[in-house]
């Protein structure tokens, strides 16, 4: 039971109003809502608020923001449409939903851009005020789809959102244009009524967001209440819906809603605390990674230093310099930034210093699709450097897991004195889910010991910067300021042990193999397989953000009687030690990826298995139904 859940309706005692018993209430087990509008319509904010209320109410949920790369594409055009999809349920769910049950379309462009995704019978709430001749022709509609039969398969609720909002705000001093802007809050109020969402959180949020402009704050609250009351009084909404809290979906604990980028930023701060090292972020703004820079820059009271560099190269350079000085050095970027950072990552490999390199993958190549998701940087992370330059790779499977994997990346970096890749992507970065807030006592101990004494085995009293720990093969980390350990490191090959420049062929061969052995020897947890029947022939193996859709697809296939095993890789370099054995257990291996088969290629090369790829590079995550179909096809083979 969630303690915040009161009797539905009781939260409305004060405002916006009392729920009328005359209207019907229907119970649903899950709903997918998509808010769509112009980039300037505030759809992301609307979606975020609905999500917060839904999270607080205790539903399980998953979100998919989808917005154009342009900050304000021309108003009313198809490229300017921004949307936010939210799936919430009374049970545990894995994806933001394949298709919306409800579409809120703020203008013709939003309707047109999203219509193809709607299943028959879906509800559409449209802002009729925007359906002018001009607006319709902007998106190529000669006739008004609201009355030419285009929408006859759907349940349409025409609402004059703009007019109603302006009407509700006529007592305020706001100019008409400003009043119109609050129409997203009217829509949010209406949807909050429809789905019995608590409302006080949004009112509190609006008052604090616009604390400096109280009249705007009040206008938004008024519009929000007006939307709620409209649902309550108008004839066109006869029923409202309840989706009970997902009591059984969650293990006990304290929960909050969290996006991948926020979880990642928090994970880095936690890693700093747990290691006792100050955090240094060197970064250059890039979509969809910038929010991590923004978030970390807010937390200087945790000793976090953020440095917005002149370019991607300087961002990682500064982080590496800070690592040389004993900080937890981190750089955050997306694929194009990694391309620029490659040389410095190679230097970090050679210097054997800890460094966390975060890649929030987006559609490529080149600038590609800045705001869309993809996981096509795996091979870049794996191999994208000159020379033999192995780098460990970890990848979170859900937004909340970005927290855990940030700690894991730091653990590997600090223990093995190596740069580490963390591969997230646009879908995880901006998507959100309920997250159990960990107790501090659950966090790993990441304390490191700096070298303090000379270590030369010859008893000379010298310091050998490359004398390795026999277990981990890590070299000592001696930071400037430590007397007696003055030493020089560099990107030129050096003699193992002393660290002196060495061009000796045998030494280079030894060093290349040693650096590789160090990474290959990193201790990572074994891969766990979910195989409830215990006799599946088919293994579906994924990595990164595809976890949700794959698990949802597997669930459907199992419900239809299919015997399917599922496993998900969080460590991609090195692979878990038992991976070869796991792969060998199954007759068939299916690898769904949002690239052209990069993991499958690694598996085939490494384990000689006939891994079969299923790939999609549309900038959008897989859908559960799509994967269910692919899985049942593979089962039938």
């Amino acid at each position: 039971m969630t303690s915040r859940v009161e009797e539905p309706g009781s939260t409305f005692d004060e405002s916006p109003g009392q729920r009328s018993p005359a209207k019907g209430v229907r119970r649903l087990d899950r709903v997918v809502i998509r808010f769509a509008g112009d980039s300037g319509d505030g759809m992301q904010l609307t979606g975020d608020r609905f999500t917060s209320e839904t999270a607080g109410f205790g539903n399980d949920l998953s979100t998919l923001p989808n917005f154009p790369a342009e900050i304000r594409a021309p108003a009313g055009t198809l490229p300017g449409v921004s949307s936010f999809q939210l799936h919430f349920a009374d049970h545990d769910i894995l994806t933001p939903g394949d298709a919306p049950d409800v579409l809120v379309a703020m203008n013709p462009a939003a309707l047109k851009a999203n219509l193809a995704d709607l299943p028959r019978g879906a509800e559409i709430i449209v802002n009729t005020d925007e359906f002018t001749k001009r607006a319709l022709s902007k998106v190529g509609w000669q006739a008004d789809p609201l009355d030419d039969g285009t929408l006859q398969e759907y349940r349409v609720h025409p609402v004059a959102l703009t007019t109603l909002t302006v009407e509700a705000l006529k007592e305020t001093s706001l100019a008409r244009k400003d009043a119109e802007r609050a129409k997203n809050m009217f829509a949010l109020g209406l949807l909050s009524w429809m789905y019995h969402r608590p409302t006080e959180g949004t009112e509190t949020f609006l008052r604090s967001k616009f604390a400096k402009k109280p009249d705007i704050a009040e206008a938004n609250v008024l519009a929000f209440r007006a939307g709620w009351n409209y649902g309550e009084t108008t004839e066109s909404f006869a029923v409202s819906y309840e989706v009970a809290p997902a009591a059984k979906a969650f293990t006990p604990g304290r929960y909050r809603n969290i996006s991948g980028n926020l979880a990642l930023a928090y994970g880095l701060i936690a890693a700093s605390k747990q290691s006792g090292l100050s955090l240094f972020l060197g970064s250059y703004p890039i979509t969809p990674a910038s929010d991590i820079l923004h978030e970390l820059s807010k937390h200087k009271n945790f000793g976090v230093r953020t440095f917005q560099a002149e370019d991607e190269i300087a961002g990682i350079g500064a982080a590496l310099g800070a690592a040389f000085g004993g900080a937890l050095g981190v750089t955050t970027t997306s694929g194009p930034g990694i391309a620029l950072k490659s040389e410095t990552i190679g230097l970090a490999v050679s210097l054997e210093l800890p460094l966390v390199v975060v890649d929030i993958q987006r559609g490529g190549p080149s600038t590609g699709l800045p705001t869309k998701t993809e996981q096509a940087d795996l091979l870049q992370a794996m191999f994208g450097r000159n020379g033999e330059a192995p780098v460990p790779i970890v990848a979170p499977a859900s937004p909340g897991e970005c927290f855990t994997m940030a700690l894991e990346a730091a653990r590997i970096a600090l223990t093995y004195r190596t740069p580490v890749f963390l591969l997230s992507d646009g879908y995880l970065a901006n998507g959100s889910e309920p997250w159990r807030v960990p107790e501090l006592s659950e966090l790993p101990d990441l304390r490191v010991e700096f070298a303090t004494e000379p270590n030369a085995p010859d008893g000379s009293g010298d310091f050998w910067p490359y004398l390795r720990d026999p277990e981990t093969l890590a070299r000592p980390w001696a930071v400037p300021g430590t007397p007696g350990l003055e030493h020089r490191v560099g990107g030129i090959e050096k003699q193992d042990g002393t660290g002196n420049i060495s061009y000796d062929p045998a030494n280079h061969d030894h060093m290349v193999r040693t650096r590789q052995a160090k990474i290959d020897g990193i201790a990572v947890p074994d891969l766990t397989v979910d195989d409830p029947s215990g006799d599946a022939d088919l293994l579906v193996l994924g990595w990164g953000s595809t976890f949700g859709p794959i698990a949802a697809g597997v669930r459907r296939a199992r419900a239809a009687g299919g015997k399917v095993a599922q496993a998900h890789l969080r460590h991609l370099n090195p692979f878990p030690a038992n991976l070869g054995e796991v792969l060998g257990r199954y007759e068939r291996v299916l690898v769904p990826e949002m690239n052209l088969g990069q993991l499958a290629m690694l598996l085939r090369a490494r384990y000689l298995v006939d891994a079969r790829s299923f790939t999609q590079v549309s900038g959008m995550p897989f859908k559960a139904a799509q994967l269910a179909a692919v899985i049942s096809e593979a089962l039938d083979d």
Partner: protein
Amino acid sequence: MTDLLKLTAKDFKSDQEVRWCPGCGDYAILAAVQGFLPELGIARENIVFVSGIGCSSRFPYYLNTYGMHSIHGRAPAIATGLASSRPDLSVWVITGDGDALSIGGNHLIHALRRNVNLKILLFNNRIYGLTKGQYSPTSEPGKITKSTPMGSLDEPFRPLSLALGAEAGFVARTIDSDRKHLTSVLRAAAEHQGTALVEIYQNCNIFNDGAFEVLKDPETRDSALLRLEHGQPYTVNGEEHVHDVTDPDPTRAFALSRLSEPTPIGVLRAVERPSYDRQLNAQLEQAVTERGEGDLGALLSGSDTWMVR
């Protein structure tokens, strides 16, 4: 702890064999730096030399301090991270004309405008040495080199003009062979709080021998050089000025930076403003004063949580 008073040049020599060409100007600079470091009164372990790639960038290997020989052009960026997170250290950047002005130009100008507490020694020999003799961004137009058999077409940078244009607070020029002058300029740079750029004319006797001969030859140097001293008068084009390194207006310093006959040496500008690292660390302290030390538990919970029992 090392007894700071007793440190000598010898204490700053590493055990590594120096591998520049015999006769290279880098030897003289190394000797001058090793001779100068003891007078800083800073323990060896608190000094870091960071370099890029090029002949001059081997410098850190020969100094018994902490050091990093990094990658081409990136030393100012790397040193920025180090100096910003470790304001207790004395951080020096060793770079050359190709390293600093070509591949690393962006990092150089941004380090200067940001005013990180770095001392940047730019060895200018007006040629690429390590890659065996291509023209550099400071080579004179028309220069015949391996990559420009018909003469180079590029207009060269004037490093000090570039630095002043990039809002540098401290710019100076000196010459490898004039140990006394070199040491005095190093001293002034070390005293400056913030980024200091020192251009050192350095002879590459293999690929560009004699590039600065007219400034060194006892016969010609007195008329070829303009020795700048703060507070002392100097005459250019018949006009007399009193040299003021603290002048907030960079106009005079800029005019000097463009002058080649005679060639000014010494400190052109030494105007202090708060350094990046100090301000960054002050923000950290201010954040703690205003909000208290970060509380991880409170951060993770945020303001919007619910309990599942």
